[in-house]
């Protein structure tokens, strides 16, 4: 770029200051989060007009409960995406953590809070292992987590002989089936709390800033004295914990830890894991995050799925719709971003 310093020169001219407020409004209107909110409201209206059952208490409750899990899965992928990496093993880790929790409750008759901690520790350990291998080998997280997704899942199936743990502590299952104020699942509250904690991490801590800096430009971050390897490992560890939370949420909801709950190798989680962050405006190349966006994105996806199923629009075609949605999301994002860049809004 040829910089003469003229274009961006000096402070803020008065005229621009006046239009500053308008620019900010425009920026908000063009933001992902706002767009998602509009879509959520729009689809809620459409679904409830076509099928009034959509707004029934149970339907709303079920929507909240399902989206809670999808939001956690989205968060789990999000914290790795910000480093510019991927974690294909989210599903595998989630199931492993859930199965370990189930094992602790059934075979060791542990009280559920301890078993939950055990499950999360398993998630953390597997995530950290991913991070360790990625950092040590210097290879892209794609291939490493592709391999570990297969390894984690295979070992889990081998050890559990593909059998479920159904002897789950009643207190734990009742948590997953509880209704607050008639329609709110406590699982959704868990996701909200996780979202708040993640927002604090990225906005108000040195660690969170270092994660974003590492993701945006690893070389620059390292040369500024950030221990980038350690940071990347932390991100994967965190991803493992969040995947574990999602897995345990499912256990609490279904009352059993089932090896196939995320499909073969945990692959069924992959699409929701990416849809949330991508719809929410988290950059796949790393360095920029939107916790609220991921939350809303995952919620929108769950709502669309639930609504379409409710309207009985070909359950078999669901995957096609989600695929098209992902495609549409990235294409719209591309157009939006180039518009913002042209208008110099970002």
């Amino acid at each position, binding site marked *: 770029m*040829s*910089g003469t310093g003229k274009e961006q020169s000096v402070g803020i001219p008065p005229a621009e200051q006046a239009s500053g407020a308008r620019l900010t409004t425009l920026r908000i209107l063009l933001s992902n989060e706002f767009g998602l909110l509009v879509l959520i409201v729009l689809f809620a209206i459409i679904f409830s007009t076509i099928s009034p059952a959509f707004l029934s208490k149970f339907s709303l409750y079920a929507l909240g409960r399902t989206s809670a899990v999808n939001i956690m899965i989205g968060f789990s992928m999000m914290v790795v995406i910000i480093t510019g990496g991927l974690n294909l093993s989210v599903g595998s880790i989630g199931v492993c953590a859930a199965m370990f929790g189930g094992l602790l409750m059934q075979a060791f008759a542990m009280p559920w809070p301890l078993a939950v901690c055990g499950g999360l520790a398993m998630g953390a350990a597997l995530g950290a292992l991913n991070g360790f291998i990625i950092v040590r080998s210097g290879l892209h997280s794609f291939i490493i987590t592709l391999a570990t997704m297969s390894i984690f899942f295979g070992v889990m199936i081998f050890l559990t002989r593909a059998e479920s743990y159904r002897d789950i502590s009643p207190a734990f299952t009742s948590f997953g089936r509880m209704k607050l104020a008639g329609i709110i699942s406590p699982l959704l509250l868990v996701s909200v709390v996780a979202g708040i904690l993640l927002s604090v991490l990225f906005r108000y801590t040195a660690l969170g800033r270092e994660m974003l800096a590492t993701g*945006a*430009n690893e*070389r620059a*971050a390292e040369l500024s*004295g950030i221990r980038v390897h350690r940071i990347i490992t932390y991100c994967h560890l965190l991803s493992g914990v969040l995947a574990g939370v999602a897995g345990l949420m499912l256990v609490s909801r279904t009352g059993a830890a089932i090896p196939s709950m995320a499909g073969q190798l945990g692959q069924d989680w992959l699409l929701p894991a990416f849809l949330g962050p991508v719809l929410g405006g988290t950059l796949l190349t790393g*360095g920029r995050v939107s916790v609220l966006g991921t939350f809303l994105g995952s919620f929108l996806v769950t709502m669309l799925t639930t609504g379409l199923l409710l309207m009985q629009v070909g359950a078999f075609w669901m995957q096609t719709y989600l695929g098209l949605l992902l495609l549409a999301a990235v294409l719209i994002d591309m157009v939006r971003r180039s518009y913002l*860049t042209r208008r110099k809004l970002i």
Partner: protein
Amino acid sequence: MSIQNAPSETSVFVAEGMTKTFPGVTALEDVRLSLSKGSIHALLGENGAGKSTLIKAITGVHRLDSGRMMLNGQLFEPTDTRDAISRGIGVVHQERNLIPRFSIGENIFLESLNAHPLRRIDYNKLFRDARVWLEMLGVDADPAMPVHRLSVAKTQLVEIAKALSLNSRILLLDEPTAALTPHETDTLFKILRQLRDDGVSLMFVSHKLEEVQEICDRVTVLRDGKNACESQPLEGLDRQAIVRLMIGRNEQIPDWSARDRSTGKALLQLKNVSTSLGHKEIDLSVHKGEIVGLYGLVGAGRSELAKSILGKFQVTGGEVLVNGSRAEIHSVADAVRRYRIGYVSEDRKSEGLVLMHSVLENVGMPIWRRLAGLAHFLTNGKIRKHTEPYIRKLEVRTPSLEQHVGNLSGGNQQKVSVAKWLAAEVQILIIDEPSVGIDIKTKAYLHELIRELSDNGTALLLITSDMPEMITLADHIVVMNDYRIMGEIDNTRDYDTMSERIMTLIQGEELVAAE
């Protein structure tokens, strides 16, 4: 060297009104240029004046917003690089543009191979043909060798062979000599003169004015994306006159007298250091308040040495001393946090700054940990308090501290990368090519700042390929070539004698090798 006929009679390439804008920047504005048959045309300008954009427009990488180009009297509007190549335009690009795992031979002939995607490649013939070009350029290498095994200088020569092999009638060379030793440069110049005599039109971009004066016959100077002069005969223009065209006024070399700062405490010392990258027997010391310049050609291993000192690459032998005692640096974080060593990278965009983050984030990066409280808690307010004074001091021009660094001009970006280390209060600062891609005013400002920093006791290691900059700033100059130190001299600040002595030092090894 003689001036050819007037450009109007033998012009093979004429461009008028060339204009090209990028978001926020006008890179070229109403630029004119004409290249005549059998001439070597110099294209000069400061970094960021638009030279590369001009070359990319001629070679079909960028499309012009307006203006027109005529080639051999016909309208020339290249749709892409392939189109430009097929119309007889060859280029040696500034960035390295070879396919790393492909052989030298295949890289040289990549363009012509591509013309017939389904015709079998005859590798024997290809290597035979490649050898001819290599011999012509004096490169001793097997054409079947993959290029990623070559040294920087040989890679550059392969790129030149690649451009020559197209037998283009117009050949553009963007900094072709940056990595070449004087001997290799001489060989290249012989070939360029030969081509000129054969009627080829050459355009030569270099920041080494001595070279330009030696080989070129005409000159076009760009300043801020506009013509400062167009296709003017070079004869009669002296160095001063050219510089005046480039920067728009007389060159102002600050009248800083030579000083000896080697009596102060040695803050950074390297003793017989070798590294995993291949440095050998490196001895170097930088004292408190001293500016030590590290001069060498591109590929001499200077930035690599800097990064080894920082702990990014491994030091395999000898010892590094900071403040007189042996330093245990295992990672850049150790260097920055424990020993307060900072590094301003030559490559701002990919390793100096986080372009997509704000000014505040960038300047605060090295001190986040230091500022963070309980449970890593850290607010923008606290970072602002510790960084804003430095951002103000350096007069970084930005609408706000929240502005993305990527939106700032080159000069302001460079100020941000320096401010970062001021805020970190480093005692040793390594500055790598400080004036790449910044305007002349910021450059002068940065020079004063560097001088001021040294006066305040910071030990500075300055890496630059810009000879005048080196002679203006450094107290002591260390010359490197091929990952070794060739010698060191105190800077007398007399340009002519100093530049001659430095080039002699670089050539030193070559003469020995030739014997």
